[in-house]
Each structure stands twice: as structure tokens, then as C-alpha cells.
């Protein structure tokens, strides 16, 4: 505690590293997820958010390990349920800034239903979908965003033969009110998107291309093809849908933003108390 006689000083603005935990990531060298972590801490520092007022909720996967690497309140939950954990947390604690992060498997395979319903519910959450088009943690199987002809998994030796999802299209069709795409190769750009996503009043989906050099070494070439969208963001969902459908999935930037108010649990009932409620049981 500072003694009374010390001169008052404005606290130093927080730095990104202040939001990092002491834990050493288990990620492989070169994994895109390192940069996502950096972008998150930058975005938090930029907003100078007190670390204790931020929660980072994840599922299971390499990407989902990110919760423990940030020094905020974290929950490393079970596979696919991060958005449900976060929905409960945010409804109970609207005062917290709640970030959710996880992989393409976590969010679109096992967690697909919660993704749909989170988009529809439009709670004030920021969802960081770390897409490497593979299940990294379980050693390289196809995910819902993997190209149909990717044959490197022994589970699907001829490729899945199934057209991948476009996460941004799904988000739009399901009703998300903010959709953007970032790239781990551009952590500053990503941090900027994250700041805006957090400022957005409703459910914000940030689709992040985050390569897995271990199981998708060819993704190391993403840096050659990723670039900004050549159009501005829109508030027309159909227009946004057009753009993402026309795109090769490699353009980054803001896609869609509709500033309608976030959903919150109903609170218009007249306040009562337990004795009054119990009185209803009397004959």
C-alpha cells in the first residue's frame, strides 16, 4: 500500500503484456494462435480495461487453450460449449466484458448449435473463431471448414467430399449483428477488429484465419493471399452475404454491423420479494 505522503501519480496506461499470464503456451512453434493472443491483449490494453472486469471463455482445442494465457478471468470449459458458458455468465454479470474464443471444430462442429443460437440471441459478447480448418488438438482431422478435397487425415483419406461451411455466411444467416474477419498474420489489424467488436453492443463474430503449421503447413502461404476486403462494411445483411459468398474466404476487415441493441434477459417485472412470493401458496 502506498503511504500517504507519496506524491499522487496517474497510473501508467496498461500494456498488452499486463494481460498475459505467466503460463507458457503449449502451441507448436509458428502456430497462428500466438498472434491471436497478442491481438487480444493489445485490444484490452487499447481499451485500458481493468483485467478483473474481463472474462475469456473457451472450449477445448489448441485455440481454446488461450483462456489460460491471458491474465483475466478465464474459463476453459468443455468442447463446444464455450458460447453457452458465456451466455450464462453475461446474463448473470452484464457488467463484465465477455470474450469467447475457440476453434473451427469447437465452434462449428460440436458447438454449431450454440453458435447458431448465440448469433440469434445477440447478447453482448465477442466471439473469436480461430479457424485453422483442422482439428489441431486431436492431431489433424478435417473440420467443418476444411476443403472437401483435403486428404491428409487418415480419418478421411479421400477427403471429406463435403463442401466446407462459410462461417461468416452462417453467422449472417443466423442473425449475428457484427461480422468481421481477421488474420493472425496481421495482429494489429486483428486487434483493431477486436476493439470494435467489443465496443459493438450485440453479438460480434470475428472470424480469424489462424494457421496450423503442424497439420496444415500449406497455410503458411495464407500470408501471401490474405488481404483487406475491397469494399466497406455494410449494415445490409443481404449485401454482406453477397460479399462473403463472392469472396474466397481470405479477405479481412469489417463485413457487417447492425447497431441494434443487445439482447438482455427480461427485467420489466415489478420487483417483489420472497415473502410475497410465498404468500401465493396460502389458501
Amino acid at each position: 500500500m502506498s503511504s500517504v505522503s507519496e506524491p499522487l501519480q496517474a497510473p501508467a496506461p496498461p500494456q498488452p503484456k499486463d494481460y498475459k499470464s505467466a503460463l507458457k503456451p503449449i502451441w507448436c512453434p509458428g502456430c497462428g494462435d500466438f498472434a491471436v493472443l497478442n491481438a487480444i491483449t493489445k485490444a484490452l490494453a487499447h481499451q485500458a480495461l481493468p483485467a478483473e472486469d474481463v472474462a475469456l471463455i473457451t472450449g477445448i482445442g489448441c485455440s481454446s487453450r488461450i483462456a489460460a494465457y491471458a491474465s483475466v478471468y478465464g474459463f476453459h470449459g468443455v468442447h463446444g460449449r464455450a458460447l453457452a458458458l458465456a451466455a450464462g455468465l453475461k446474463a448473470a454479470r452484464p457488467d463484465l466484458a465477455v470474450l469467447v474464443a475457440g476453434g473451427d471444430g469447437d465452434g462449428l462442429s460440436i458447438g454449431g448449435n450454440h453458435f447458431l443460437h448465440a448469433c440469434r440471441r445477440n447478447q453482448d459478447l465477442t466471439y473469436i473463431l480461430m479457424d485453422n480448418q483442422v482439428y489441431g488438438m486431436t492431431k489433424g482431422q478435417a473440420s467443418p471448414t476444411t476443403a472437401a478435397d483435403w486428404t491428409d487425415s487418415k480419418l478421411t483419406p479421400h477427403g471429406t467430399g463435403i463442401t466446407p461451411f462459410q462461417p461468416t455466411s452462417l453467422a449472417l444467416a443466423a442473425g449475428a449483428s457484427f461480422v468481421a474477419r481477421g488474420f493472425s498474420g496481421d495482429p494489429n489489424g486483428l486487434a483493431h477488429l477486436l476493439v470494435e467488436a467489443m465496443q459493438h453492443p450485440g453479438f460480434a463474430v470475428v472470424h480469424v484465419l489462424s494457421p496450423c503449421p503442424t497439420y496444415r503447413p500449406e497455410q503458411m502461404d495464407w500470408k501471401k493471399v490474405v488481404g483487406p476486403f475491397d469494399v466497406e462494411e455494410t449494415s445490409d445483411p443481404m449485401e454482406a452475404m453477397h460479399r462473403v459468398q463472392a469472396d474466397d474466404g481470405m479477405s479481412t476487415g469489417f463485413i457487417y454491423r447492425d447497431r441494434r441493441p443487445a439482447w438482455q434477459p427480461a427485467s420489466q417485472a415489478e420487483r417483489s420479494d420472497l415473502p410475497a412470493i410465498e404468500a401465493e401458496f396460502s389458501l
Partner: protein
Amino acid sequence: MSRSDCSIALTGSGGAGAITAGELLLRLAGRQGGYGLMRRSFGPQIRGGEAAALLRFATAPVGCMNDVYDVFLALDWRNAERFGDEIPLGAKSLVLHDPAAGPVPEAIVASGARLLELPLKALAGDLEGGRPNMIALGALAALIGLERASGKTLIEARFVAKGSAIVEASTAAFNAGFTVIETAEDPELATAWRIAWDGDAAGIDERWSLTGNEGCGLGALRGGVRFAAAYPITPASDMLEWLAPRLEQLGGCLLQAEDELASINMVTGASFGGVPAMTATSGPGLSLMLEGMGLAVASETPALVVNVMRGGPSTGIPTKSEQADLDQALHGLHGDAPHLVLGALDHADCVLTTEWATRLAEQLQTVAVVLSDQNLAQSRVLTAAPDYTLPALEGRVEATASDAYERYALTESGVSPMARPGTPGCMYTADGLEHAASGQPSTAAAVHAAQLDKRERKITDHDYGDFWAEIRNYPGDGAPTLALLTWGSTTGAVREAAERLAAKGRAVRVIALRLLAPARPAALAGALAGIDEVLVIEQSHSRQFHRYLRAHYDFDQPLDVLARPGPILFTPGEIVTHIEQETRS
């Protein structure tokens, strides 16, 4: 001649209003100082199908249906045979039937019950807007000795929103029915089914009308629950519907989730945020929650799960009762995942048990499953307002700002302070991966063992006081040597069986377990002092409770078992007969 107990079944096809009449009759009896219980039963049609109001009235509290119905009134006979199983009749039963509804079904005639015509249609025809169910209500009210005047008051209160024409027509119908019985030639009608409402009217203000689902909902609120997330499922939905507006009134909320995978995780998320949280479901939903419950156990996040059991397995018999989710509640989680399982013993006990479970979950930072069942959940009882004092519990131990905060610190009790998000300096990551005291993931054997010990110790070492079971002696000629060991809603029928045995001179002890897990072997051994025979009574085909007792308790006495599946509930007579025929002593 008057009696202290009368059971009535009232049936009718879709829209005939049997349920409405039954509910009013129950309320009427309550207003007159009586006790009672009402179950509802429906045919398979989603809505508008046949319905039965199954009622029991008495001058003292009742906890189960009786062996035989004293009175059966059918508004019509369409599909009435469906309820045959549920409405046992005997030679002393009275069947009131409308000649206009056609002949009495064979099975009912065969019961030997006395048949008496009650010309509902004809009487209704004489009245403008007169509904047969209100005539039936009047007749039944008169039959069991309720007051005509209170019928009027009640009908007014109930139908006022529908306008005065309805109120008047209903009242007239009620009166017409009442008069039929009052003025019947046969003097038996005026006396044989009349209950001696001995005016416990002073206690009426402390008397509640309560369903088990309401009881669990209230218990959760009393325990501090201010967040719920759930997905509708029979027979738990009414609890959720009761809770939703009331949580809001208390500044909390209920989220309707997309499925049970979401609801349990929403609960865990809210609880992580510092708000006591719950969900309610039934077997199929509980199955889907198990992974999430395991996360709450491993991450030491308090969570209340009320499971209202229905007939299983799989979709099973959703609208009927059974006690067969015990195994799953106890053992359904993968890995070694100690948690609390409690069972509510009766309607009022739903309040106590659920409040206690909530407080235990909060204090012990684990999952508490409360098992109720369709039997309690969807029946309505007139009962004394719940009156209990729980063992003192300090509530959730929260962490205060600290530099060296360790979320999963190895404390003596096994409970580690839990930081509420927003607390500076205590940031941690809750984890379902095995973790060291700091929360950091670890695969080390010593860490794993220490955390497994801690999660078990905090639960097994807790002092649950006397609430782990209800233990009552029913003294007969001498001290009891036979103990009836049961749990959950079966307790109602067991208690009454014990009363009857005691009245016949056979002393028994009833031990009804409220705390199912962790097991309390020392406490049970104490409760069995002087007992040399134990009969386990449960409603499960595979004897789940019996198996569990064998696994976790040592008995010096031989264990007998009375176990069978639903949907027909145990009656006191069935238990008495079993004991008289099968037990040794």
C-alpha cells in the same frame, strides 16, 4: 357416521372439465380446514383428450393416494377405461354415473362397487349454461360434507374474470349438484362419505397449496438461486414456468436455452460469475447434462440440477412417475467426479431439500442434484407451510484481492476460496483439465491425487447434521425391530404403511434418505440400532437404491427389497401386505 379420509376420482373426456372441478374441490376442502392431495392423469392425446382428477381428502396431512377409491364420478365414459389401472375400486366404492352417458363399463361393474345414478346432463339441461362438471363439484362437495356457502365464494373467485353470467351459471350448477345429494332419499349419501372436518381452521393460514415443482422452485429461491437456464421437458417444465416470472421479480432471470447442453453450461457460466444458479430437467435432459456437470465438478463451480424423474428408459413414459434416474444421478459422470445427490421426500420437503441442496452446492463448490419425480412434481397437496431450520452454512467462500491467489488451493476442508470475477488480483482460469492449486493444467500424478482427494474430502468430510435422513419410529407393541428404508416420493406411502402397521401393533421405523450422496454409513448404522430386519422400498425395476445401499453401506441385518417399476405408484396397503407376508419378525 363420518370419516377422516375419502378418495375420489373424477373423470371426463376432453373439455368436460374434470380437472377444473377437482382443483376447486381440493381448494374448497382446504378452506374448510382439511388436508388433501390431487393428482392429474391424462390420456395420450396432447390436449383435449380424456382426463382424470384423482383426489384424496383427510383431516390430517396425506402423502399418497389410498389403495382404493371411495367415490368414482364419471362425467362421461369415453376412454374412461384408460384410467382403470390408476383407479382401483372395491365393493365399498361408490360409482356416481350419469344415465345419459350410457351403460357403466363392465370392468367397473365387475368391481362390485355400488352404482348410483347422478343425472348430470338432465340437471344441466334445466339450467342456463349449467355445466355438468360444476354439478359434479356440488354433488361431491355435499357428499364429503363441505359447506355450500364456501363453494359459491370459491366459484366467484375462480370465474370472476369470465364474467358474471359464467359465475352465476356455475354457482347454480354447483348448488343443483349439492342439493341432489343433500336431499337424496338414501340416508347413506348424507353420512357415509362425509368427512369430519374437525375445524383445524385456526391453522388454515399456515396451510399451503403446493406442487412438488413449486416446492423445488421455491426451495431454490430460498437457497439464493437468482439465475436459471433450462430447456422445457415434461414433467419439469411447470417448475421452470413457475420460476421464470418470480426470478425476474427478485432481480434474477431465467434463460430458455437451445438445449440441455447449453442450459447446464449457462448455469455454470452464471455461477462462475458469482450468482447461484440452477437448471431443472428430467431423464433425457439429465443425460445430456452429464458432461457439463462433470465440468462443474472438476472446475469446482457450484450448480443446482433438479431432476424430475419420469418413466424410463429413453423417452419412456414421460407423463408418469418412477425412481429410476438414481443410478445416473449418482454415477452418470465419467471419471471420479464426487458430487451431491439429494432426494425430496414429499411436497413440502421439496422446499427444504432444494434449499439445502442449493446452500450445500454453494458452500462445497460442487454440483448438487435434487431428485424429485412426476409423482411429487405435478400433484398438488394441502400441507402445513414448510417449517424447518437448516444446519448453518456459511455460503460460498469468496476470495478477496490477493497477490498469491490460488483458486484450487489445498485447504483442510477441501474448499478453496473462489474469486468472483471483478475482484482485482485474483484472476484465474477455471478448468476441466486436471490442474494444480493455481489452476494451471497438470498431468502430474501427485497433483491429480491431491485434487481428487480435495474434491472428495470437501464433500465426505462435511457435517450434514441430522438432515441426511428422516428417521421416525412408529411405535406399536414394543420397540421397532423392522426398518423400512426408502427415499424420494415413495416415502409418502411408506409413512402411511408404517402408521397402519403401528395401529395394528407392529412397530416399525421408517428411514427415508434425503442425502443420497455422499453416503453416510456411520449415521445409518446408528439409525439402525435395535433393528434386526431391513426392508428397502423403491420404485425401480433394477433395484437401483438397493444396489447403491449394498455398495456403500454395511448392514448387520438382512436386507429385503420391495421394488417395482412405475407408472403405478405404491399404496400403503400394498406395502403393508408385503410386510405382513414377507418379513420375518
